[in-house]
């Protein structure tokens, strides 16, 4: 008997996939696979010219399809792909955000005048082979398919409707990022060290995530989020398994966010990785990890609120305070922005603690606003260069405002947006999250948040003072203007201004997305 005969006899139903509703994901993964084929079959000289438009088109198509889904008369609100993916308002908002932020990051990654990536990752730093590959003008075009796989994983992560899909998405987004971190063109030792640290700690944390998933499976008899929610509300099963499972699962998720005490990888990796990859991680990975966190805590663990809220309170307070305080002592600009990103993860957690629709929509808006600002800031860092590459040490930035007032002014504006000054997107985002947290009964958390913002404002202003009120060094870094980087800065700046001055359309969009709630 042939295979079809056996299948027909046992009557195994074919899985039903809603291709139309999950198309943005499929497009991104499809382009990633195509990119691998391009690496295999296209000559070296042509790869860059094929890969960049391919990745660009893939992301534009994914974004366009997401918009088309959201603009339907009845936007999708369903559990797709046999229960693996939840396509709903928050998912679509996050997909759109991730696709746009990845597009802006792609502008940085694809910069050719000042390549950020090593000519050949396998050549030893400082060896003859490295010099030869540099002289021959090789470029490591594997970066683009790797980036697309990571973006696909990032889009899948917040849409996952069961813990297995979530684990696979977590790995699909992490594995390419581990590699990308190690591909810097300059300061390769730092870059490789960042990759090793990120990899070992990331694998460690995903083991925690998985053991948490196993314990929740033991509790509920299923890894689907809605089944876990039902098992919690029915109060069947062993509560020890439930609580231990939630704790371990949270460790994995909080690690990806970089929340204290699981934050130690973030400064090292952000500093060591090539700056465009840092921009991608600081924006898209944060959006994605926070989306997944929201889905787990709103869908599966909502009825367990009273148990997890105190823990998340403590983590949020620690994250805000430690991020803001340690950032003060930093002398490296990238490292300082990494600690600032940790503090922002803490501000975002206050939106999670609110557990209301307002908290959800505020968090979604904050994620989009912060993503643009952070990419813009890292893009500016790639422009300030001296003989050794990027001049990331803060002392080298002295007097930049006198030498290149436009670039320094732009960076100052991004820093003010991080600090949350009114008329920037940072203010609107913080206001949305904090007001939701107050309504949700987390006023002490908001007080800590505002105090931490004040501490954070101190070190942002310190950078501005260094740039504008000290004299430039004679051999200081120069501003290198490269076309696509400028485009990325301009987009980041435009989004920061627009979301600060006219936030209402995007706030409405986030409100609508959150109003639909997560599908169960």
């Amino acid at each position, binding site marked *: 008997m042939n295979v079809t005969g056996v299948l027909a006899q046992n009557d195994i139903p074919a899985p039903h996939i809603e291709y139309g509703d999950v198309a943005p994901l499929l497009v991104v993964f499809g382009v990633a696979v195509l990119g691998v084929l391009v690496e295999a079959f296209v000559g070296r000289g042509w790869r860059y010219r094929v890969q960049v438009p391919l990745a660009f088109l893939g992301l534009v198509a994914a974004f366009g399809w997401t918009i088309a889904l959201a603009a339907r008369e009845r936007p999708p609100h369903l559990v797709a792909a046999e229960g693996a993916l939840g396509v709903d308002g928050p998912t679509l908002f996050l997909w759109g955000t991730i696709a746009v932020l990845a597009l802006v990051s792609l502008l940085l990654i694809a910069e050719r005048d000042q390549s950020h990536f090593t000519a050949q990752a396998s050549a030893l730093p400082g060896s003859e082979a490295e010099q030869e590959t540099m002289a021959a003008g090789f470029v490591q075009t594997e970066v683009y398919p790797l980036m697309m796989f990571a973006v696909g994983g990032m889009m899948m992560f917040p849409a996952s409707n069961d813990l297995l899909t979530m684990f696979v998405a977590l790995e699909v987004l992490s594995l390419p990022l581990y590699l990308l971190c190690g591909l810097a063109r300059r300061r390769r030792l730092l870059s490789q060290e960042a990759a090793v640290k990120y990899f*070992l700690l990331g694998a460690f944390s995903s083991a925690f995530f998985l053991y948490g998933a196993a314990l929740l499976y*033991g509790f509920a008899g299923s890894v689907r989020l809605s089944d876990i929610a039902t098992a919690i509300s029915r109060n069947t099963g062993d509560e020890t398994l439930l609580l231990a499972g939630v704790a371990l699962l949270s460790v994995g998720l909080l690690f990806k966010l970089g929340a204290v005490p699981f934050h130690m990888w973030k400064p090292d990796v952000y500093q060591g990785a090539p700056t465009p990859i840092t921009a991608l991680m600081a924006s898209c990975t944060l959006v994605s990890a926070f989306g997944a966190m929201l889905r787990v805590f709103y869908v599966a663990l909502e009825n367990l609120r009273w148990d997890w809220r105190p823990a998340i309170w403590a983590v949020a307070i620690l994250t805000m305070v430690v991020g803001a305080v340690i950032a003060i002592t930093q002398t490296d600009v990238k490292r300082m922005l990494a600690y600032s990103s940790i503090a922002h993860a803490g501000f975002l957690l206050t939106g999670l603690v609110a557990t209301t629709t307002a908290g959800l929509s505020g968090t979604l808006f904050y994620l989009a606003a912060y993503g643009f600002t952070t990419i813009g800031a890292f893009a500016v860092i790639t422009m300030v260069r001296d003989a050794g590459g990027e001049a990331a040490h803060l002392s080298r930035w002295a007097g930049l405002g006198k030498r290149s007032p436009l670039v320094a002014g732009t960076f100052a504006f991004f820093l003010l947006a991080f600090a949350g000054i009114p008329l920037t997107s940072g203010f609107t985002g913080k206001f949305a999250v904090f007001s939701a947290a107050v309504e949700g009964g987390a006023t002490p958390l908001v007080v800590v948040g505002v105090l931490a913002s004040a501490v954070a404002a101190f070190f942002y202003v310190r950078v501005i003072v260094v740039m504008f009120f000290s004299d430039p060094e004679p051999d200081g870094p120069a501003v290198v203007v490269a076309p696509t980087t400028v485009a990325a800065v301009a987009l980041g700046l435009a989004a920061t201004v627009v979301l600060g001055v006219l936030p209402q359309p995007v706030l409405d969009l986030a409100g609508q997305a959150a109003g639909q709630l997560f599908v169960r």
Partner: protein
Amino acid sequence: MSPTHYLVLSAILFTIGGIGVLVRRNAIVVFMCVELMLNATNLAFVSFARMHGNLDGQIIAFFVMVVAAAEVVVGLAILMTIFRTRRSSSVDDANLLKY
């Protein structure tokens, strides 16, 4: 034999792996300890599948194995690169990035 014993074994293996990651210095051994943690998870999944009488846990174990294999590929590539550069696979030697 009751499946609970296997759960206890899986918890012990997970703990051994976790302690190994924290105390061992060789990056390869640290990574093997992570793999041990993943295998402990597989054992837990399979035991729970037996206790609940459904196949989900067994299927998940296969997925975890595939993901672990992919992780080995990426991880060994990264560890190999840094070993060739530094001539050392001790995690204590990679200390340029700190504070």
